[in-house]
């Protein structure tokens, strides 16, 4: 049925066996989280499914089918498509940068037939796939060899630079974080890691020069929201008011005044978690964090239980990618870091993000289903 260029699978599972083997517990948790998101979109729309909740539900169902479909595909096939996928994403990213549409003042979208796509979202998954494949072929001591390190650094650096030029600081940060995490997990020497962190810290003032005006303004208003209380600081202070006013148990479903009366900006997208905080309070927010933690726990367990280095790196890479979304969005809407435009996965309204996240879970599930598949180190290496 499928070409099997790699040997040493213990045996090939049938589709029905694979379906039974899908971690349905994880799927249930994902569905619960997504449902919280639907409820929020319903509430933010003033108690209506239109215009957001209905579309989001549809996307989630498509995503769910995609998740299960991806889980059925052999992990070795994913390994095989890793580089082409990366190349494809990179091409799209370049195309966006050149001929992308201007959305929210930044070139982030490209029209691909009927759907608008954010190549930067696709790039994260592709990068994880490609890096996992590349690092699969390297031993611990190989990873730290400067020549071997050049290729993954380029694989990370080029899309990150492109995304940064869009400009999209948040996604660029996640791309770098994904890539560096994989290098770290593959065993990159501390002799590289620690000086690199030092260098980054030193580069912050230089990087400041390259930031766009609106990015600088965001950082400045983050550091002092009162600087521009009615302008850029508005988002931060209104988000904090929404979150804080929720108190312990929240104002109740459909009763969030900040989100219902449009004080909360982007309540359906980037600041959706804030709307949850307003209506369901501290209990609701920590409950959601707990669900996220369970998903991450599942992801780590799948990674550690996988027999192939590719699957391990892929599974944990995807899990960490999911985590970075939560971290950056969570910190951004609670005022811990500047606003960078990263959605809350499964919660925020948005087509590409939902499909990419579900695609990621599909790959994670494929790792789970194919955890017993062993892939020799040498195979798949391009060097």
């Amino acid at each position, binding site marked *: 049925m499928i070409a099997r260029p790699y040997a040493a699978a213990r045996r090939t599972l049938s589709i029905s066996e694979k379906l039974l083997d899908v971690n349905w517990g994880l799927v249930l948790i994902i569905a619960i989280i997504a449902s919280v998101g639907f409820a929020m979109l319903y509430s933010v729309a003033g108690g209506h499914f239109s215009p957001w909740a209905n579309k989001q539900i549809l996307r989630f169902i498509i995503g769910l089918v995609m998740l299960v479909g991806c889980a059925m595909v052999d992990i070795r096939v994913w390994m095989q498509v890793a580089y082409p996928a990366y190349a494809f994403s990179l091409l799209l990213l370049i195309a966006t940068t050149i001929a992308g549409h201007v959305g929210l003042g930044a070139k982030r979208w490209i029209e691909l037939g009927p759907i608008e796509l954010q190549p930067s979202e696709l790039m994260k998954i592709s990068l994880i796939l490609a890096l996992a494949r590349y690092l699969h072929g390297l031993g611990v001591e190989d990873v730290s060899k400067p020549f071997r390190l050049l290729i993954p650094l380029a694989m990370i650096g080029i899309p990150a630079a492109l995304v940064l030029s869009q400009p999209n600081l948040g996604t660029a940060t996640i791309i770098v974080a994904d890539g560096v995490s994989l290098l770290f997990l593959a065993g990159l020497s501390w002799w590289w890691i620690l000086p690199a962190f030092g260098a980054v810290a030193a580069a912050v003032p230089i990087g400041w020069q390259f930031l766009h005006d609106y990015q600088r303004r965001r950082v400045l208003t983050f550091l002092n929201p009162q600087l521009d209380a009615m302008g850029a600081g508005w988002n931060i202070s209104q988000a904090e008011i929404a979150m804080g006013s929720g108190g312990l148990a929240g104002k109740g479903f459909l009763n969030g005044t900040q989100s219902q009366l449009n004080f909360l900006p982007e309540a359906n997208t980037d600041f959706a978690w804030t709307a949850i905080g*307003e209506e369901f309070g501290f209990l609701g927010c920590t409950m959601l964090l707990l669900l996220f933690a369970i998903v991450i726990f599942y992801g780590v367990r799948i990674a550690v239980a996988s027999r192939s*280095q590719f699957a391990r*790196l892929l599974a944990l890479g995807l899990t960490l990618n999911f985590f970075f979304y939560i971290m950056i969005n969570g910190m951004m809407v609670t005022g811990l870091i500047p606003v960078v435009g990263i959605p809350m996965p499964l919660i925020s309204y948005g087509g590409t993000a939902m499909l990419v996240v579900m695609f990621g879970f599909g790959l994670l599930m494929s790792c789970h289903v194919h955890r017993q598949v062993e892939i020799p180190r040498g195979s798949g290496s391009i060097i």
Partner: protein
Amino acid sequence: MPLFDRKDKSRYATFTRRSLMMSGGVGVVFAILGGRLYQLQIQEGQEYRARSEENRVSERLVAPPRGRIFDRFGVELANNRRNFRVLLTREQLPNGVKPALDTISRIIYLSDRQRERVLRDVAANKAFVPVIVAENLSWDDFARINLHLPYLTGIQPDVGETRAYPFGDELVHILGYVAAVSQQEEQADSDPLLGLPGFRIGKRGIEKEFDTELRGKAGVDRIEVNAYGRNIRELSHETAAPGADIYLTIDNDLQRFTAQRLAGESAAGVVMDVTTGDVLALASTPGFDPNLFNIGISNAQWRELMGDDHKPLLNKAIAGTYPPGSTFKTAMAVAAVDNDMADFAVNCSGSIRLGNHVFYCDAWRIGGHGHVNLTRGIQVSCDIFFYEVARRLGIDKMGASARALGLGAPTGIELPGERSGLIPTRAWKLARFGVPWQQGETLVNGIGQGYMLATPIQLCMLAARIATGKAVVPRITHDIGIRRSPHPAHAPLPFSDKAFTMVREGMRLAVNQPGGTAFGSRITQPGMEMAGKTGTAQVRRITKEERATGIKSNASLPWNLREHALFIAFAPVEAPRYAASIVLEHGGNAHLEPQVQFARDILLYAQTRDPLKMQTAYPINAASLPTNSG
């Protein structure tokens, strides 16, 4: 190829170790997020809850209807009339603001200034905020707008409220007017109502004096708004408390009669009820239209009012100060009797010499008045008699009596801007000019010239006090809302009855006896006769040369150099009920005595008005009156 070589094992171990480290990092981040949530929602939750309420709830003030002002018989002198206006809401206009204004100006007149203001207001407000296009429309214009309404999308006719003064300039000096709040006034007054756009407060007269009472208390609409300020729904409503109605002692008919009688002159006239002190009329001419200030006065109109030498903006009845002239002789006569000079008499030869200065009497050309006692001194207004009285009394005793009669201090009438006039003292002169008092000044001040200054209301009060012998105090309000002032009981003045009797007799002779200064303009209706005292206030010095060659007649002088003509009176003579004072600026005429004619007509009118009506003073039960309709 072996599946698990040593290298594989080592990198799997590394992966597991490092994945645990990463998981630890994940845990730390979740702990930070949880901690931040705890801080925002649990520790600072109350504060943020309050701030979200502040965001959500907009408190809108509701202006209360202003209290009305009535005369003593319940005639509305100031009320709130419907203000027909046209508003437009930008977001509802199909083709923008300018075409909408074009459409409106085809129906009603819009000036270029109005159009500019509308465009400015539209630009300054959010798209859903209605902006006033035109207000104070006539009913016809308003009806035309309503007729075309089906084609006027986004344009709303609206009925507001505005202050109206039905009697215009005849009552303006009593009522004052309302106008837009100035910046200083807004800072000085903490009432949030003053910040309301279009709110008006009292600027003069009763409107200013009782502004707080008339204003009422603001209502509050608590409205839920969204982030753009658009109303979502009303949360609660607290109705505005209407301002208190004020009842004046003024008799509107008499007031208007007085104002009309004095029209064309620069003059003041006050009429009081001597038994109560109620001011029945208080006119100052010329006036101006108070509605101008409410609607908005143009620069040209303002310049015209400011530049007028008849000073229409000045309430001369309380803020105009004039040398009382010979009207002051009544006070001098009271002082004389009080100082045992009741039987004092002089032989008037037309002049007296004091040191090297000669003082003249009006009658000097005909050789003087001859034998003059106190009553005759008042009747013929003999200066020589009062020079002698002044010389014997001295300025201290003269001043004490004048002040006891109410001169030299504000009467306390409930109107803003009352002046105190002036009864000079030795100390005052020393402080003012650094020169001690001269005896010659005592003589000049003894006939109401020199430094002496009095307001028409003080002169009217003087007449009332002479007529009654009591310390009558003028008042202009009797009911403010439900607060009712009882009839005041006036204390007797510290002078003997004989003093008043003699002065009243002198004043009776001055009007009703041939030879009296006001005989030509007496009241002839039996039982309504008045008693009075004329006065002339010089506004220039008469030189020795002029006296030698003949004093220029008043009519030959420029208007602003002519003498002021004064008159104080009470009527009827036998049982005084009304006191009046008239000051006619630059209106002196020794033959016609126009100020006496004015007083005669006004006092006659006051007495011929329905006596039954007069007896029903305060028939109005404030509580039973309909309150403001707004």
